[in-house]
């Protein structure tokens, strides 16, 4: 059974990782605890569901969801985050919570509160080795998460736009003086963060073959946030490893301790962890200029 719990844990963890990457990227650059992350990408996933229901091609549906997430965050950034950008850390966090509620209610209004089957043709074949079962989709999800992590890091380090983003993360006024179009770059970071979230969310829904309102906050924002804290907030590598640790902890606690009190044990572990390593396993590598 140990091996199966291990595989279950890695599977759950990779799904969390995918969502945590977009979340942690935004934090690393803009230092905003984006509590709207989950609910924004949830809207994107529902758009994909609607496009599939309207008999669109899978690729079109996924791109549609990505575009929806991207656009929503551009608008949200313009009207909810930009006006409070310089008013301290707490204010943007609160406007993010507000956006989360608005998005959740949009989903309620358009799609309703129910759980829908989510079958978009991404096949999840289950392979049996002895007594152990694992899905092929689980492997793809983990690979996609790692690939995205590497890709984003490369883009940040190797491209001009990436350098602009890094400059902004160090100091917005200085970046502006250097001629970097701050507003445009920040908007793009939010847009991409949401787009990545949508991709993660779609794989998440494909993995559980179902979609519902709660994929946003309960399973998205909260798990991404916990993964980021464990892994080191602002670090992409940390997000992936933190998510895997979270998944494994959940799986082993359910397997060997209790399914009824799983969350209590997981949160207990989380609190102890934060006391020992408050900055996470891999504190953000983006260096502050002194």
């Amino acid at each position, binding site marked *: 059974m140990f091996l199966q719990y291990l595989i279950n844990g890695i599977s759950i963890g990779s799904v969390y990782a995918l969502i945590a990457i977009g979340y942690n990227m935004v934090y690393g650059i803009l230092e905003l605890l984006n509590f709207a992350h989950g609910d924004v990408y949830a809207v994107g996933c529902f758009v994909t569901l609607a496009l599939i229901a309207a008999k669109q091609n899978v690729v079109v549906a996924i791109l549609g969801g990505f575009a929806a997430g991207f656009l929503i965050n551009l608008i949200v950034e313009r009207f909810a985050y930009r006006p409070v950008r310089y008013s301290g850390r707490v204010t943007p966090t609160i406007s993010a919570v507000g956006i989360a509620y608005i998005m959740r209610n949009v989903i309620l209004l358009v799609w309703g509160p*129910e759980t829908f089957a989510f079958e978009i043709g991404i096949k999840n074949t289950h392979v049996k080795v002895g007594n152990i*079962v694992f899905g092929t989709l689980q492997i793809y999800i983990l690979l996609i998460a790692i690939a995205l992590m590497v890709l984003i890091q490369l883009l940040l380090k190797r491209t001009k736009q990436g350098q602009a983003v890094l400059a902004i993360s160090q100091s917005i006024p200085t970046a502006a003086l250097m001629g970097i179009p701050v507003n445009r770059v920040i908007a793009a970071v939010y847009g991409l963060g949401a787009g990545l979230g949508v991709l993660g969310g779609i794989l998440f829904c494909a993995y*559980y073959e*179902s979609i519902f309102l709660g994929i946003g906050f309960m399973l998205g924002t909260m798990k991404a946030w916990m993964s980021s804290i464990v892994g080191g907030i602002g670090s992409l590598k940390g997000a992936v490893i933190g998510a895997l640790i979270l998944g494994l902890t959940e799986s082993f606690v*359910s397997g060997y301790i209790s399914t*009824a009190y799983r969350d209590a044990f997981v949160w207990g572990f989380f609190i102890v962890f934060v006391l020992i390593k408050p900055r996470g396993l891999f504190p953000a590598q983006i260096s502050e200029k002194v």
Partner: protein
Amino acid sequence: MKRVQVIIVLTVAFAFLICGPAITFGQNIKFAVVSPMTGDSAAQGIQIKNGATLAVDEINAKGIKGKKLEFIVGDDMANPNQATIVAQKFAADKTLLFVLGHNNSGCSISALPIYQKAGLPLISPTNTNPTITDMGYKNYFRVIANDDLIVEQQVLLAVKELGLKKPVVIWENTDYGKGMRDVALRKLQQLNIPLLGNESFVPGVDRDYSAQVTKFKGTGCDVVFFMGEYTAGALFAKQGKNLGLTAQIVAGSGCSNPKLIEIAGTAAEGFYALTTFDPNDKRPVQAAFIKKYTGLYKDAPGEWSSHAYDIVYLVKKAYEAGGTDRPSLIQKLHEVKAFQGVTGTIEFDARGDVPGKKVMVLVVKNGTFNTIVPTKY
């Protein structure tokens, strides 16, 4: 002096204004429908509302003693905390004759003290936790068989009819799920069958059942007693199949919803669910109700809509017998004898239970629920 008089007049006028609804008796008989209208079990709340609406529309075509029925809707989100908030709102509304709801046992349990204080009758279409009627509330009624009966049949179906004797149980962590688990454990003990696994989940939150499935697989069980609602049931069936769990799933009444098949797809094949309303009933009254409901709402009626439908007609009968205010309605409901509804015979015992109700068995075959009649118990 004059100013004092003006103040008194204004105060009295204002008092009339706020007490208005309480002292003027309108032409309509008002009640409240409360259930989860949002969240994981919203499909049930919507069914309850639809069932009540259908009955109200039918009755209003003729009226009751020259009056019409109307209702307001409350959303308890299947959450006991939210249930008390809604209950307080209803309790403060003096125009309400009774409350139809809640869908979830836990919600009724937390809201009942509030209704009792207001003397407001609470008639639940779907509360099955056996302990509710042990609490001694005189204003509480339910028109559905409780879990003592349902779960007993669930265990008998697996053990006697299907010959499965290596059971495990998975229950949602609520009053409903715990109540069902307790009855199952008691019944299995009586039958001298050891339980091989006992796991739970949080409804509306948990989407991953791989840990439970893995544990069950390790026990070598041949039957899973599923104590929860259809969304979780569907996902459990799906993930169980994916992870190679071969045990038969036998669920209680929360899973007899066609949505289960929609969500689980082919993984629902062979899923057993008990029900107190047979969606394939061919008897004329039931068949007519099913046809009318399906035509109106483009959705087959289930336990939720059928029991809500029966409650409205039951109250009509009690109202016509003189139950025109809250205390007399409670009394007249107790006096109703052998009321024939679409869900069977309703007659309350002193506790507000319906001991005469029957339980039926459904099994998913070729993508729909089929009714089967057990022969071995």
